């Protein structure tokens, strides 16, 4: 079953690149939403179902930590896997992100072929998490 994915990054170009990589990686993608920061992501989540969130940390308005906190406190979204794609290397901040519920992180710069491998490993795709709401209607 394909994953409905949301990519959250303040760089439109980076969102495009991640979207393209997902498209050719063999990772099963259904709808693919994009948000420029955590606030925009939460707004989209009021109207759309997603199975997986790929998020940057350093963003204006609401950063990745703000998004993780909001998701953790949400009845609907607290189980949704969030994978960080980030330049962050501060150990304390990475630990903080993991303690807030991030399933894992991919460091920028990354090679295209590493995305699927990382996502499968982080999510345990084949034998683990099963997208639950992918058959819901979406405008995308």
């Amino acid at each position, binding site marked *: 079953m394909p994953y409905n994915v949301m990519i959250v990054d303040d*760089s*439109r170009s980076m969102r495009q*690149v991640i979207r393209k990589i997902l498209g050719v990686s063999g990772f099963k993608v259904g709808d693919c939403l994009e948000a420029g920061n955590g606030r925009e992501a939460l707004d989209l989540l009021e109207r759309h179902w997603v199975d997986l969130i790929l998020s940057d940390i*350093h963003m204006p308005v609401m950063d990745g930590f703000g998004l993780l906190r909001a998701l953790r406190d949400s009845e609907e979204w607290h189980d949704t896997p969030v994978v960080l794609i980030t*330049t962050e290397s501060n*150990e304390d901040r990475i630990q903080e992100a993991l303690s807030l519920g991030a399933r894992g992180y991919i460091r*920028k*710069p*990354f*090679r295209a072929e590493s995305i699927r491998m990382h996502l499968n490993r982080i999510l345990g795709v084949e034998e683990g998490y099963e997208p639950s709401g992918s058959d819901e209607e979406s405008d995308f």
Partner: protein
Amino acid sequence: MSHQAAMRKAISDVLETMFFLTVDFEDRLPEGQLSLCQAGIPVWLKDGRTTVTLSMVEDFARMAAANFLGVDDDRVDDNEVADVVREMANMVGGGFIENAGDTKARLGIPTFSRTRGTIGGNSGEIPFAWMGDFAGIVTWDPVENSGNQR
């Protein structure tokens, strides 16, 4: 690893991995005024704050943006170049921190500008070339001992 070595490795890693560009490091600086695409990013190191600035000549920046997006150079608009240069500075800053082994360092949000000026004269600077031509330079200010707070 010294800051100089950490920065060189960061530039090479970022440009090769995500922009498919291999650059050479040259000490020779171009003379005269250049039009540059420039992105600066604040970095809080354990011994203080600095700003890392990535400046690239327009043609090289456009080529890098095109490579990043997987399109021809003439299909990249100015906003996309700005966005890609900002993201490149973000990744170079992150790589610099990691290579320098500063596990408590933090990055700010990068800002972009187009500018015209001369090259050189910074406390830390690493010029780089592509196919023998000057392509850009990464500079950083002296570290200000203002603590590790944002």
